[in-house]
């Protein structure tokens, strides 16, 4: 009899049939039915309707059946919380079972059922199980504490489970210790305060180290990972822990080895770098790391990603092990690419010959990505090891001769970098490069080639022709190429001004008039201005001597590297990203390497020095940015910010210093300033609030606010798709509300792919059906998408309903004020108002609250204001402001008394803003 038949039932009345089978008297039939249910559950069918029937099968002495029922409960309890309660009794009873396996099973399963009521019942049995005689039950209970903490952290602290867990750290059984450590680490990690709830101390660490020798391989991983979070109090303690951990490097499990490496790498930071101990430890690290390369490819991949970090932190460890990173023909591509990366990092004068011949071999392989990376690697070797540059260049030339399109393109990109490292050395090959101009179709390669032509324009006779040939298709080029072409032609013009004037005018007009890319336009204008005012300065700027690119490329930024070293073996080390970049909701504990006491200053200095060697140095970037858009290795972009400011500053100086020879620009600038002038004094828009949190919106998060633009109310929304599927078919509807708000147009939201968000502004009219809401400004919204319809309510700031024509004439104001009975007057006090009468007046005016009159009376400023709602209801206000007194009295009169409170609230917000 096989179980695969359970997967094939697809009949229609299946649920009904299963129901009757589950209630059958025959045990065998019951079991079969439960198996069918589990099989359906696996393939994603909804069998939650069978909950009571399956739960009925729970009381059985057949362990296999019991486990299946528990599996079902874990899956569906959350959707049927009331039903799940029925199971509590059986759980509690099972926790008392004489068989330890059943006790453990019950406490394990109970922890997985995330229903509040069950959680309450869990506490007592859990407390017992934590003190159970049987280690198997205790180790299961330890993990259950972590489960409970995940459901209800406060409960765990209230019930004192943290202390029980801490007691388990001294348990006689190593597996219990290991699980307790794992649970504690997780609880600490989740601590909201970012501060660990339980601090490790030397005696606990000692217990852990003892357990380390005895527990399972997984337990060893838990213990080592938690040790890596502990910071020894001094060098001696660090050293003694290291000594006890080193034997783990010979473990067969790669996770144990890597976790041990993590602890050692971290603790080594605390010791003097030349100390004998550190030197001998470094020597011990190499062999196990190399051995990891003979494990399964997936493990190799993790190991290689980590080795990449380790050799950046401590290059000495593997410097003699180049050969083991040679690529094997059958390695999976992800292993090949990683090995290549490491080979480049390890390349040095001693081994460069070997490395180059390998790389040349790789450049003829089949996989395009791999070949490209190999070609790029040759270039990086040239930059890194000066002695090899010549050989690298000739290898690259050989490769260009193969005429394989992507090889040629890649080679040209790296040759550009070689030119930047060794200027005036290899220019003889330019002719060969130019031959391949037509085959280049990738932006990066085209841009590199153009850069080369511009940079060496004086040596290329037909440089103008070559560049001109690119101009025809200027509009279709990638931005990178456009920018490069602009710069190259300007360079050419500065070098050969006589015959290229037409060309430069052409490109400048293309860049400034026909392009809508601001970067391109800006650069075009800067060049234009430079050339027209001071060609000498232009020469100095555009043809400035560029800093040489330094040897190490693609280094990870030092502080990030240190953080990643603390995460060796983990996902962060695989992604080379800090955990915050891919884990939700971890604000807390950022790891940093410990530093040696008393050497902190020195270490800061050292990292400073290290960061300076990463190219390109910030500050020397001006020349770079003007002439280079191509990242010479990934780091250019990161440092770009500093350079940009410089350029803008320089550019502005030039603009200011020259006469307004180009009125068009100035008026443009004026416009921009004009615009920003008005925009800075706008209407108060409350910050966006999350109206629909993602968990409630099945992954759609909506946040929003209201604004008023050009006499119309807008609902400003941000849709964020946090689900794994795209969202589309959006529509919106508003419930009847106090002011008759309805959408003025349909909600025009396109498809939102996963992990993307979209801002949209929805204009609203006030001619819809009216129904008074409580409070007045409440608005109920329904938003539909392809997944579901979601309802939420939000509160509108009342001032969006103040119309622009709300300025009452003085006389009318006086008359109305008298006319409204004093019962309709409400007084409020505004606290902590810092502005004076004029300030209040202007601030409120921007929000359509108009000042009708102002008076100075007995040392007080009286301000009278009026406002009109979209539904023609008027409200009048009187403010008493005492200079120097932060309290302001506000009296509001209106026929509709309900609005007063909202008006006060909005005064309060606006004046405090």
């Amino acid at each position, binding site marked *: 009899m096989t179980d695969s038949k359970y997967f094939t039932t697809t009949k229609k009345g299946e649920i009904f049939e299963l129901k009757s089978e589950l209630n059958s008297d025959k045990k065998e039939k019951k079991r079969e039915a439960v198996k069918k249910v589990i099989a359906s559950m696996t393939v994603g069918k909804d069998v939650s309707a069978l909950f009571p029937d399956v739960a009925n099968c729970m009381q059985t002495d057949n362990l296999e059946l019991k486990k299946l029922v528990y599996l079902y409960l874990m899956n569906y309890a959350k959707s049927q919380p009331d039903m799940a309660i029925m199971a509590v009794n059986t759980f509690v009873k099972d926790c008392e079972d004489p068989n330890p396996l059943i006790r453990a099973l019950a406490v394990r399963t109970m922890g997985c059922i995330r229903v509040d009521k069950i959680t309450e019942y869990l506490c007592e049995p859990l407390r017992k199980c934590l003190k159970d005689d049987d280690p198997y039950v205790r180790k299961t209970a330890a993990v259950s504490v972590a489960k409970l903490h995940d459901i209800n952290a406060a409960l765990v602290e209230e019930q004192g489970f943290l202390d029980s867990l801490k007691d388990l750290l001294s348990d006689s059984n190593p*597996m219990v210790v290991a699980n307790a450590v794992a649970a504690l680490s997780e609880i600490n990690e989740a601590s909201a305060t970012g501060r660990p709830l339980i601090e490790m101390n030397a005696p606990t660490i000692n217990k852990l180290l003892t357990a380390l020798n005895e527990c399972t391989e997984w337990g060893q991983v838990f213990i080592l990972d938690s040790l890596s979070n502990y910071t020894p109090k001094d060098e001696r303690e660090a050293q003694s822990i290291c000594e006890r951990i*080193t034997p783990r490097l*010979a473990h067969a499990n790669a996770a144990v080895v890597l976790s041990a490496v993590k602890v050692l790498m971290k603790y080594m930071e605390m010791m003097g770098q030349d100390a004998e101990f550190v030197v001998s430890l470094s020597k011990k690290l190499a062999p196990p790391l190399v051995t990891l390369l003979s494990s399964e490819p997936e493990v190799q991949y993790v190991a290689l990603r980590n080795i990449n970090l380790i050799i950046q932190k401590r290059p000495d460890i593997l410097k003699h092990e180049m050969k083991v990173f040679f690529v094997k023909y059958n390695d999976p591509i992800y292993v090949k690419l990683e090995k290549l990366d490491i080979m480049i990092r390890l390349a040095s004068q001693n081994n460069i010959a070997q490395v180059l011949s390998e790389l040349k071999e790789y450049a003829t392989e089949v996989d395009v990505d791999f070949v490209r990376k190999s070609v790029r690697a040759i270039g990086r070797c040239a930059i890194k090891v000066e002695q090899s540059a010549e050989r690298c260049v000739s290898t690259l030339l050989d490769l260009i001769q193969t005429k394989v399109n992507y090889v040629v393109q890649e080679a040209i990109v790296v040759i550009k970098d070689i030119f930047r490292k060794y200027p005036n050395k290899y220019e003889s090959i330019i002719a060969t490069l130019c031959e391949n101009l037509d085959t280049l179709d990738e932006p990066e390669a085209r841009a590199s080639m153009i850069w080369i032509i511009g940079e060496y324009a004086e040596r290329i006779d037909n440089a103008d022709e070559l560049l001109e040939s690119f101009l025809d298709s200027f509009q279709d080029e990638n931005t990178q190429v456009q920018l490069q072409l602009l710069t190259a032609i300007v360079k050419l013009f500065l070098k050969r001004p006589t015959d290229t004037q037409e060309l430069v005018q052409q490109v400048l007009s293309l860049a400034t008039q026909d392009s809508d890319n601001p970067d391109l336009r800006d650069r075009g204008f800067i060049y234009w201005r430079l050339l027209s005012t001071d060609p000498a300065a232009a020469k100095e700027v555009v043809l400035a001597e560029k800093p040489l690119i330094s040897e190490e490329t693609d280094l990870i930024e030092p502080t990030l590297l240190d953080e990643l070293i603390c995460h060796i073996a*983990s996902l962060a080390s695989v992604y080379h990203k800090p955990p915050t970049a891919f884990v939700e909701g971890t604000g807390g504990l950022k790891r940093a390497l410990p530093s040696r006491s008393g050497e902190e200053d020195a270490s800061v200095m050292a990292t400073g020095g290290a960061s300076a060697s990463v190219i390109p140095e910030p500050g020397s970037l001006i020349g770079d940015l003007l002439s280079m858009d191509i990242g010479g290795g990934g780091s250019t972009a990161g440092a770009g910010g500093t350079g940009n400011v410089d350029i803008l500053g320089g550019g502005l100086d030039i603009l200011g210093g020259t006469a307004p020879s180009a009125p068009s620009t100035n008026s443009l600038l004026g416009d921009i300033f004009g615009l920003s002038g008005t925009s800075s004094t706008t209407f108060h828009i409350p910050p966006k609030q999350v109206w629909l949190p993602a968990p409630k919106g099945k992954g759609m998060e909506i946040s929003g606010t209201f604004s008023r633009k050009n006499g119309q109310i807008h609902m400003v929304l941000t849709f964020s798709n946090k689900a794994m599927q795209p969202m589309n078919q959006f529509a919106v509807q508003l419930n009847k509300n106090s002011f008759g708000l309805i959408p003025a147009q349909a909600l025009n939201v396109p498809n939102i792919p996963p992990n993307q968000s979209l801002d949209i502004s929805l204009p609203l009219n006030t001619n819809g059906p009216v129904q008074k809401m409580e409070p007045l400004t409440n608005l109920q919204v329904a938003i539909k998408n392809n997944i579901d319809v979601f309802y939420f309510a939000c509160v509108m700031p009342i001032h969006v309903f103040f119309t622009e024509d709300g300025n009452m004439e003085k006389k009318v104001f006086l008359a109305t004020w008298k006319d409204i009975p004093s019962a309709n007057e409400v007084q409020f006090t505004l606290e902590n108002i810092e502005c004076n009468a004029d300030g209040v007046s202007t601030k409120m005016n921007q929000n359509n609250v108009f000042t009708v009159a102002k008076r100075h009376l007995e040392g007080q400023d009286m301000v009278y204001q009026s406002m009109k709602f979209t539904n023609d209801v008027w409200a009048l206000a009187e403010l008493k402001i005492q200079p120097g007194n932060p309290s302001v009295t506000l009296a509001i009169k209106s026929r509709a008394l309900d609005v007063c409170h909202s008006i006060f609230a909005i005064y309060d917000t606006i004046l405090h803003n």
Partner: protein
Amino acid sequence: MIGGLFIYNHKGEVLISRVYRDDIGRNAVDAFRVNVIHARQQVRSPVTNIARTSFFHIKRSNIWLAAVTKQNVNAAMVFEFLLKMCDVMAAYFGKISEENVKNNFVLIYELLDELLDFGYPQNTDTGILKTFITQQGIKSTSREEQTAITSQVTGQIGWRREGIKYRRNELFLDVLEYVNLLMSPQGQVLSAHVAGKVVMKSYLSGMPECKFGINDKIVVDAKGKSGEETSRTKSSIAIDDCQFHQCVKLSKFETEHAISFIPPDGEYELMRYRTTKDISLPFRVIPLVREVGRTKLEVKVVIKSNFKPSLLAQKIEVRIPTPLNTSGVQLICMKGKAKYKASENAIVWKIKRMAGMKESQISAEIELLQTDSKKKWTRPPISMNFEVPFAPSGFKVRYLKVFEPKLNYSDHDVIKWVRYIGRSGLYETRC
């Protein structure tokens, strides 16, 4: 920690889905199918991040195993766990295939319940699991047996149960070595290493303490210092690195260079090691490729066996890659059988047995179709497979002593067998 574990068939249908953590939803199952299984060519890493959810996968024949998490887990541990899980499943029902997974899905769920708790790997030792996950249920076991099981699962010697009895105490040691070689066409060794392992089959009563001696330089030297000058031989070898089964007391190895342990019952891998120095390469491959015009290729390959003439190598296979546009191949070989396999783009030359210090040769004429593609043929390396009855690294077992003070058998009563096998790993010569 691991948030969920899924098993798919090649089409991407879920066969097993077990969720351990609340942050993993059903949609994760589909996300992996759509983004990884169905987009096979694009995914070039065993770790994939989709919408802040990380997926680790391995493949066994047509089956995908994927572990899912939203946390910063120990990646090495997740892969090691997935591999271990494959071992466990294989030990229970053999090959991991769609058929077998479906047939044993209840068992797999039961195993998953025990292997992982809240995503934390627990005991993954097959021997122990088999004592209490049996598919028969354990209703009949007595109280003593139950506690025996639990203390076993959590015990310090979690890999061996008490009370094992054999009438004949016997043990087998297999020293298995994989020789890896990358050689340049000129015969220069680019890289060579031996990945070796010692597999032990133990059928011993009680809880025996074993001590294992090998001819590692450090171990021998350490012994040498302690006075046993006699045991010092010139035939010690330099082991770059070694790793041990969890039964070996690592701290003792670190301090005393002694390999001592209480072995699991039955077959297991005692140690793994790696050497790079003084490897005796059993075979040399000498390739000669000549392009005759644009449509013909002449290939001559000589293999030389380089070990004692009294020994015999077996299962020799030489694989000579041919260009994709090969139209026909003529083969002449002195020994064995050779065949051109068009589907594999290779000439496969097989020799059943070959003694040491011999030489054999194959010559082939490869006819090529005219092609217009400019791209040169990339000449993959010639690879070789073989099996020899010695350890190419020079690894030697010096002794394995068994002590069981509680039972009345001594080291002399144990029957011990040692066997050395050298196999080819990646044994490649570029041409």
